[in-house]
């Protein structure tokens, strides 16, 4: 009789690498006979792929990305993996070296942080900040540029101006200073404030 077990949340845990090898094997066994769970697992794997796309592999000293053939979008045939395996075995894919840079993502991944919502007449906005106050990351809905100030005991510190993207504008400000609040200003006028606790 077919088990009623389905992978459920284990799909995301599998894709995130959070399951033990035994648990992974159980998921593999189940998805081999359950297309619904296989699709859910595939969706979770797409999320992991999106997270991993942050990293590209480049030859040192070059600005041209060296992307492995099977990392390109639209390549979906199993034979490509076989060809890639052959390439690997023959040593065509060379070693790489890791490095880190000081970016919001890296900062967020390596420190505990807290959120605070901005309040005021301006757009939806949020500030994330390291609990040790090593950095502040401000993200604002919309593509408008805002000046960002940290305030403590009546003293203002100019943290910079948000940089607009397609739908939001943001600023990553590495600083070791502690602030009571962070302000968004437009042409010098305070439009929103977030309390830092």
């Amino acid at each position, binding site marked *: 009789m077919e088990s009623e077990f389905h992978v459920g949340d284990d799909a995301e845990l599998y894709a995130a690498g*959070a399951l033990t090898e035994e648990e992974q094997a159980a998921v593999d066994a189940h998805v081999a006979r359950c297309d619904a769970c296989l699709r859910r697992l595939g969706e979770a794997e797409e999320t992991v792929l999106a997270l991993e796309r942050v990293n590209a592999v480049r030859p040192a000293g070059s600005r041209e990305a060296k992307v492995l053939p099977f990392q390109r979008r639209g390549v979906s045939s199993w034979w490509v993996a076989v060809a890639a395996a052959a390439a690997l075995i023959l040593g065509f894919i060379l070693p790489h070296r890791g490095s880190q840079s000081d970016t919001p993502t890296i900062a967020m991944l390596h420190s505990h942080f807290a959120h605070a919502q901005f309040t005021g007449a301006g757009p939806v906005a949020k500030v994330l900040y390291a609990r040790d106050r090593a950095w502040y990351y401000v993200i604002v809905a919309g593509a408008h540029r805002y000046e960002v100030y940290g305030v403590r005991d009546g003293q203002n510190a100019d943290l910079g101006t948000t940089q607009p993207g397609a739908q939001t504008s943001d600023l990553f400000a590495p600083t070791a200073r502690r602030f009571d609040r962070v302000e968004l200003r437009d042409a010098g006028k305070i439009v929103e404030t977030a309390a830092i606790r």
Partner: protein
Amino acid sequence: MQATALRLLRDPEAARECVQEVFEGLWRRGGPYSPVRGSLEAFLVTCARNAALSQLRAGRRRQETAQKIEAPGEYTLDEDPIERQRVARALAALTEGQADVVRLAYYKGMTLAEVAAELAIPIGTVKGRLSAALRALRRSLVPETSHGI
């Protein structure tokens, strides 16, 4: 795959071997990939990630990696600024609890039990938060046309 393994293992040679082991394993077993699952690329990256995490957790590479992080190499792992910004924004939209779990379990490669101990929360809560976070990140990061396929 190489970038995924390299980010976790921090050792070019270990990353190359990890990817090679993945392909050799798939070659021997035939591989559990099916088009129903979705893209081959996502499947392979997940395979590489799970293999790299297994190596990390087994502690096989810890000592060697610590010695090789600063070693010069022919290639560098660089960040795509556009993807980096997308991911930063998606991470910023998570709850604090979800973000903590993603940071420890996903990016630091800690086991669920280690995350539970670090955050002093039940392991079931860790599982729930990680799963919910991945689903939320999917909504933020994966194009709508890919949903529900």
